[in-house]
C-alpha cells in the first residue's frame, strides 16, 4: 500500500516545524516525497533540492563504483556521510536523510510484536517538525525478526502500545516505549527500554552497529567490510540486539545508521554467526549506540549520553536474563562506542565472538566495568578540559589545572624576557611537574604556565574563530547573465545561484541586484 498512514489536510503553516507532520511522518516510503517535504518545498526548497542532487549524484556514481570494484556499502557510506554533513551544516534544517532511501531506514520489529500503525498515536509520539524515516521491514522469519529502527537524529517517541505499520505492510505493535531524542543535534540518544522488547528473544543480543540489512550474500560482504572498517566512525549507531535473522535481511537500510565508516559492522560478523535473531535499533548518525559493536571508539561528547543510556538500559532488563544479555550488549556497545572509534573491527570481533550466550554473564560484568572506566576516563578528560579552559578556576582537583589556574590569576602581563627564556627552558619540566615546580619556583612556573596559557588560549580562540568566520562568510556561487555598470552604479543579472548566509542555504534561479 502506498499510504501507510492516514493523511490529513495540511494547514497553511509557514515553516515545516510548525506543521504537524506527525501524521505523515511515518508515511515516508522509498522514493516517495513526503507531504512534509512538499510543505517544506513551499517554505524552503533547499533540503529537497539537496536531497535530489545527492540522489542523482549517488546514482550517477553507482556505476563508477561498480566499475572500480568498490562495494555498494562504500557508496552507501558516502551517501550517509554526505547527508550527515549536509544535515549538520544547518543549511538544511529539515533535511531528511532518511527520506532518500528506504534501505537506510529499516524498521525491523520483532516478529512477535504486533505493531499496527495508528496515525493518531504516532502523532502524539512524534514531535512536530520531524519526519520519521521510512519504515521498511525485513522479512519476518518464523522465529527471527530484527527490529532496526533507524532514525536520523530526529526525536522520536514511541510510547508503548503504539502500533506502527511498516512500509511493507507489516503491522507492529510497540510494547516498549521507545524514545529517541536528538541531543547535540547529531547524536541521538536512544532511551529505550529495550529490555522489554527483547524479552522475547532468549538469546543474547548481538551488538550490531549500523550493520546494514543485507541479503545473505551482502551480509558476507558486510562482514568483510567490517573487517576493513576501522575508523570512519563518526557517529556510533545505537543498536539494540534483538532477533535478527540474516536471511531475512533484505534492506541495506541499516546503512543509515552506519556512520561513515560503519565500523560497527563487526556485528555483521556476529550476525552471521549468531543463529539468533537480534533486534536492532540503529540510529543513523546517532552518537549513542546502546549496543555498540565492540568498537573502541572514544567519543567524549557522546559519552555523556551513552552513560545515561546505559543506565536506562540497566534499569530495566537486569532482572531478566535474556534482557540482561541484551542489556549487556548494549552496555558493551556503548562502551565500545565511547571508546576509540577508530579501532579496527578485528579486535572487536573477537570479543564479540565471546559474547555468545554462554559467555554473556561474564562479559556483562566486564562490559559494565569497562563502561564505567570509559565513562570515568571520559569524565576525567572532560573535567580536565573544563578546568584548563576555565580561566580563573581555582579548583584544585587537577594539579595541572590548579597550577594553570593559579598562574592565570596571578599573571597580569608581567612576563619578563629573561623569565620567559627561563620558562621556555623549564616549560617541559613544568608541564610535567605539578606542585613541586610550582612550589619551588613560583614565578617561573607561573610565567611558564602563563606562556603556555596564551598558547593554549590562542589555539582555542583560533579554533573557534576559524569555523565561525567560515560559517558566517556569506557567499553566493552563481552564474551571471550580465553585469552592467554605469559610472558607479552596478547592475547584476545573475542566475542559478546557491547562497549561504550564516550557515543557511538558499537557492535562486534568477537574481537581480543593484549596488553603488
Amino acid at each position, binding site marked *: 500500500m502506498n499510504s501507510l498512514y492516514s493523511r490529513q489536510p495540511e494547514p497553511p503553516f509557514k515553516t515545516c516545524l510548525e506543521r504537524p507532520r506527525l501524521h505523515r511522518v511515518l508515511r515516508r516510503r522509498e522514493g516517495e516525497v513526503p507531504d512534509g517535504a512538499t510543505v517544506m518545498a513551499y517554505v524552503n526548497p533547499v533540503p529537497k533540492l539537496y536531497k535530489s542532487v545527492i540522489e542523482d549524484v549517488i546514482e550517477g556514481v553507482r556505476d563508477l563504483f561498480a566499475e572500480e570494484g*568498490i562495494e555498494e556499502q562504500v557508496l552507501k557510506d558516502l551517501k550517509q556521510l554526505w547527508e550527515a554533513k*549536509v544535515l549538520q551544516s544547518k543549511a538544511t534544517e529539515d533535511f531528511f536523510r532518511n527520506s532518500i532511501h528506504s534501505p537506510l531506514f529499516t524498521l525491523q520489529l520483532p516478529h512477535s510484536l504486533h505493531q499496527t500503525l495508528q496515525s493518531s498515536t504516532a502523532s502524539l509520539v512524534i514531535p512536530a517538525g520531524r519526519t520519521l524515516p521510512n519504515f521498511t521491514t525485513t522479512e519476518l522469519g518464523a522465529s527471527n525478526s530484527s527490529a532496526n529502527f533507524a532514525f536520523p537524529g530526529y526525536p522520536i517517541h514511541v510510547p508503548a502500545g503504539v502500533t506502527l505499520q511498516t512500509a511493507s505492510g507489516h503491522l507492529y505493535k510497540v510494547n516498549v516505549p521507545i524514545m529517541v531524542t536528538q541531543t547535540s543535534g547529531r547524536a541521538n540518544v536512544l532511551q529505550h527500554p529495550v529490555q522489554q522488547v527483547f524479552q522475547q528473544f532468549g538469546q543474547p543480543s548481538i551488538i550490531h552497529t549500523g550493520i546494514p540489512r543485507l541479503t545473505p550474500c551482502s551480509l558476507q560482504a558486510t562482514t568483510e567490510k567490517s573487517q576493513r572498517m576501522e575508523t570512519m566512525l563518526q557517529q556510533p549507531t545505537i543498536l539494540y540486539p534483538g532477533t535478527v535473522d540474516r536471511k531475512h535481511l533484505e534492506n541495506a537500510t541499516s546503512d543509515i545508521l552506519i556512520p561513515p565508516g560503519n565500523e560497527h559492522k563487526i556485528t555483521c560478523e556476529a550476525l552471521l554467526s549468531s543463529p539468533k535473531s537480534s533486534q536492532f535499533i540503529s540510529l543513523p548518525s546517532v552518537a549513542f549506540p546502546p549496543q555498540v559493536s565492540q568498537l573502541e571508539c572514544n567519543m567524549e561528547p557522546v559519552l555523556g549520553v551513552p552513560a545515561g543510556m546505559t543506565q536506562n538500559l540497566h534499569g530495566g532488563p537486569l532482572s531478566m536474563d535474556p534482557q540482561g544479555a541484551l542489556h549487556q550488549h548494549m552496555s558493551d556497545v556503548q562502551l565500545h562506542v565511547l571508546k576509540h572509534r577508530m579501532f579496527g573491527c578485528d579486535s572487536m570481533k573477537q570479543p564479540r565472538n565471546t559474547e555468545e550466550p554462554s559467555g554473556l554473564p561474564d562479559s556483562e560484568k566486564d562490559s559494565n566495568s569497562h563502561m564505567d572506566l570509559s565513562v570515568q576516563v571520559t569524565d576525567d578528560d572532560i573535567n580536565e578540559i573544563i578546568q584548563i579552559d576555565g580561566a580563573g578556576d581555582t579548583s584544585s582537583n587537577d594539579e595541572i589545572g590548579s597550577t594553570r589556574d593559579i598562574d592565570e590569576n596571578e599573571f597580569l602581563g608581567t612576563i619578563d624576557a629573561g623569565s620567559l627564556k627561563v620558562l621556555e627552558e623549564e616549560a617541559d619540566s613544568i608541564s610535567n611537574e605539578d606542585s613541586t615546580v610550582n612550589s619551588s619556583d613560583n614565578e617561573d612556573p607561573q610565567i611558564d604556565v602563563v606562556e603556555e596559557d596564551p598558547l593554549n588560549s590562542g589555539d582555542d580562540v583560533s579554533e573557534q574563530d576559524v569555523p565561525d568566520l567560515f560559517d558566517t562568510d556569506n557567499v553566493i556561487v552563481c*552564474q*551571471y547573465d550580465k553585469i552592467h555598470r554605469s559610472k558607479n552604479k552596478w547592475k547584476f543579472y545573475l542566475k542559478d545561484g546557491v547562497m549561504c*548566509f550564516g550557515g543557511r542555504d538558499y537557492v535562486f534561479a534568477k537574481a537581480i541586484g543593484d*549596488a553603488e
Partner: protein
Amino acid sequence: LYRNTTLGNSLQESLDELIQSQQITPQLALQVLLQFDKAINSALAQRVRNRVNFRGSLNTYRFCDNVWTFVLNDVEFREVTELIKVDKVKIVACDGK
C-alpha cells in the same frame, strides 16, 4: 563552480574520509566530484524556479578569467517569502553562457 558550497564541501569531505580509510581511490573521488558538478548544474537549472532581488553597496569587484567576484556590504536580499540582510557578502559568478 559549485564545489565550494555546503553540498559540495560536505561531499568532498566525505570523499576525503573514504579515501583516508582507503575505501575509494582519489581518482574515483574525482569522478564523483565531476558527477556532482553535472548533477548540481542540472538541478539548479531545472529544479529551482525562484527569484531574488538584492540591493547593496559595492565594496570590491574583480573580473578575471571570465569570473566575476564581488564583495558587497550591507546587502539586502529580498525574496517573495522573506527578506535577508547581511553585512557582507561575497559573490562569485561564472559566465552563464
